């Protein structure tokens, strides 16, 4: 009990929607209501909000505990209540019922650059932002050089922040917040801004803060890789309720992704009006057996599965590449494979009219789990027609069983891949 940093008990937060609309003429409304029925108006003043507004429970009976030094990831769809939860822990808004017990100082980074004023210089904003986040002037002075070094803005300290590039702005904002020394650090999706290098730096700093300094970190993000690499436990929120609290990171993330993703099947058929182009108009993209019959959703790892891509070619083009991208259940890209991967003399030649391409998904290479395949169609070095991660059609594959013929390997082992490699005795 004594090493609990945050204890949340039956926390609920209700918003009254519809109440916002009358905000503008609220006073006139209030005066009118008072004139019409003074007694009812007085009684209603005591209660919060008239009954005519609709209730929306942003959080309902949320309970869980966080131990000191833990790094907790909070995931969930937009609107699940993550930001509301953070706002309540940060004391920005009050809960409707329930309670939270917190040990130690809390610092929240709910937005990058809170309180930054564009007219002030970098130096002035460091002090202002630090003070707003709760640092004393002495503390800021002590950490000033470190903050500037982390943000890499030595040369621009005395320029107004409105002249900074967005990258510099975000680095500076995070630099100040990163040097707070709270017992509990709360970070809300701020990693969504900034380039990859910045995100790496932020993650590194957060890791530093938790492992190195033993502080508790609460981290909301949509970046599942970041959540997986940083957190020990995940809280999955949905519709204001706790769906799961667990240290099985991949499992919880997988459950979240599959619950939120649109469910796909093994087959995609062009409804008729998408991805129109004269070089390779996709008609059908599916997983099938060697003859082309569509597969069941779940296959064994030793069962040969083929990717079938059917399309209409109107205009021939030597730069045309067609294939697929393979992603695992967590969204990690495993590989791309296209028909031009072989030496040029072995490429399948596409001709005007209906063409069908087929490629075997490597057997006994992938591990058990769910996979997504996204269609690739492009003109090499020229343009994308079907781009994975953006407009590509998606099909799903689920591999279960058939991992190997060995009696010692019958269930899923760790790793993204599960190739059955050959072993022999070598020369002495």
């Amino acid at each position: 009990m004594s090493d609990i940093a945050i204890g949340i008990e039956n926390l609920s937060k209700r918003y009254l929607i519809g109440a916002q609309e009358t905000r503008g003429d609220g006073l006139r409304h209030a005066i009118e209501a008072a004139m019409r029925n003074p007694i009812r108006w007085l009684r209603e003043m005591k209660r919060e909000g008239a009954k005519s507004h609709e209730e929306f429970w942003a959080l309902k009976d949320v309970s869980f505990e966080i131990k000191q030094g833990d790094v907790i990831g909070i995931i969930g769809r937009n609107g699940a209540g993550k930001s509301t939860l953070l706002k309540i822990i940060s004391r920005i808004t009050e809960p409707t019922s329930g309670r939270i017990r917190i040990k130690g100082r809390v610092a929240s980074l709910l937005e990058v650059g809170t309180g930054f004023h564009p007219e002030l210089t970098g130096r002035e904003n460091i002090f202002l932002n630090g003070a707003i986040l709760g640092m004393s002037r002495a503390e800021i002075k002590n950490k000033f050089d470190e903050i500037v070094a982390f943000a890499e803005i030595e040369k621009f300290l005395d320029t107004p922040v409105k002249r900074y590039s967005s990258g510099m702005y975000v680095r500076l904002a995070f630099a100040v917040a990163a040097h707070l020394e709270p017992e509990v650090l709360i970070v809300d999706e701020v990693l969504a801004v900034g380039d990859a290098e910045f995100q790496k730096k932020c993650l590194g700093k957060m890791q530093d803060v938790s492992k190195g300094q033993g502080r508790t970190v609460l981290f909301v993000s949509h970046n599942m890789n970041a959540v997986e690499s940083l957190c020990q436990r995940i809280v999955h929120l949905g519709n204001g309720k706790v769906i799961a609290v667990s240290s099985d990171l991949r499992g919880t993330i997988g459950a979240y992704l599959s619950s939120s993703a649109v469910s796909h099947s093994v087959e995609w058929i062009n409804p008729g009006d998408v991805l129109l182009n004269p070089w390779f108009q996709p008609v059908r993209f599916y997983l099938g057996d060697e003859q082309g019959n569509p597969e069941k959703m779940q296959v064994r790892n030793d069962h040969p599965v083929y990717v079938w891509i059917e399309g209409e070619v109107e205009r021939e083009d030597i730069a045309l590449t067609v294939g697929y991208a393979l992603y695992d259940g967590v969204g990690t890209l495993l590989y791309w494979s296209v028909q031009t991967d072989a030496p040029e003399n072995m490429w399948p030649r596409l001709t005007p009219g209906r063409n069908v391409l087929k490629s075997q998904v490597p057997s006994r290479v992938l591990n058990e789990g769910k996979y997504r395949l996204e269609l690739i169609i492009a003109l090499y070095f020229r343009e994308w027609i079907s781009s994975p991660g953006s407009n590509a059609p998606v099909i799903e594959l689920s591999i279960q069983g058939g991992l190997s013929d060995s009696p010692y390997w019958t269930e899923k082992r760790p790793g993204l891949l599960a190739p059955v490699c050959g072993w022999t005795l070598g020369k002495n």
Partner: protein
Amino acid sequence: MKNYSDSPSSTEELTIESGRSERHYWRDLWRYRELFYFLAWRDLLIRYKQTVVGVTWSLIRPFLTMIVLTVVFGRLGKMSSGGVPYPVMVFCGMLPWMFFSTALSESGNSLVNNSSLISKVYFPRIIVPASSVITSFADFLISAAFLALLMIWYHFPPSMNILFLPLFTLLGFGASLGTGIWIAALMVKYRDFRFIVPFVVQFGLYISPVGFLSTVVPDRWLLIYSLNPMVGVIDGFRWSLLGGQNAIYWPGLAISVLSTLLLLITGIKYFRRTEKMFADII
């Protein structure tokens, strides 16, 4: 286990519950005391960035108002000034009034203007309107310097009562803070006040003894007239700076002090009651 040092130690426990925020409020206010300074500093810095004339703007406004009032009330209206050079008499009244009116407008709008802070960071919200009053106080000090110059120009030395000036300044501060906090809290929920405030300030200029002396107010109105907290402040300023015929109507002053205290106490109460909902409705 509570500990009374400045920043919370790792053993300190905080409970967040509906209706419970009051207990830590004053302690938090002390902990965040530097924020009063920083927000006021920010507002002053911003005001003068990229301006050429800079600080002198805070002198030009009172100077021009003084000229207008001297012409309108003094020359044209021929209001008496009790034997003191009219501009000095007017400026003595204007000094606290400008402080009050700018403090009121700025603090009234302060919460709404800082809505991004309110919805993203925790700190005791009362710091926001309070720091606006502090910013206006900085302007007040500059204008006070100007008044000193004015009195030197007219060879008019201040009376001995000047020792009481800090007390009247404090009273003015209290009146500004009390009204400012009220308006700031009301403004969050009822944006109508954005239009009401300039009107009140305009109106207030005519019912406060800025362009005229309290002596012209007929006796039967004196008590009601004194409900305006600025009456006590302005009369007090005149008495302490100019002395002589600017006697204070003591019952009036008592009423002004009471109304200031009332404004402050009820203002703070109302603010704290509605503070919890600011982030939700701002």
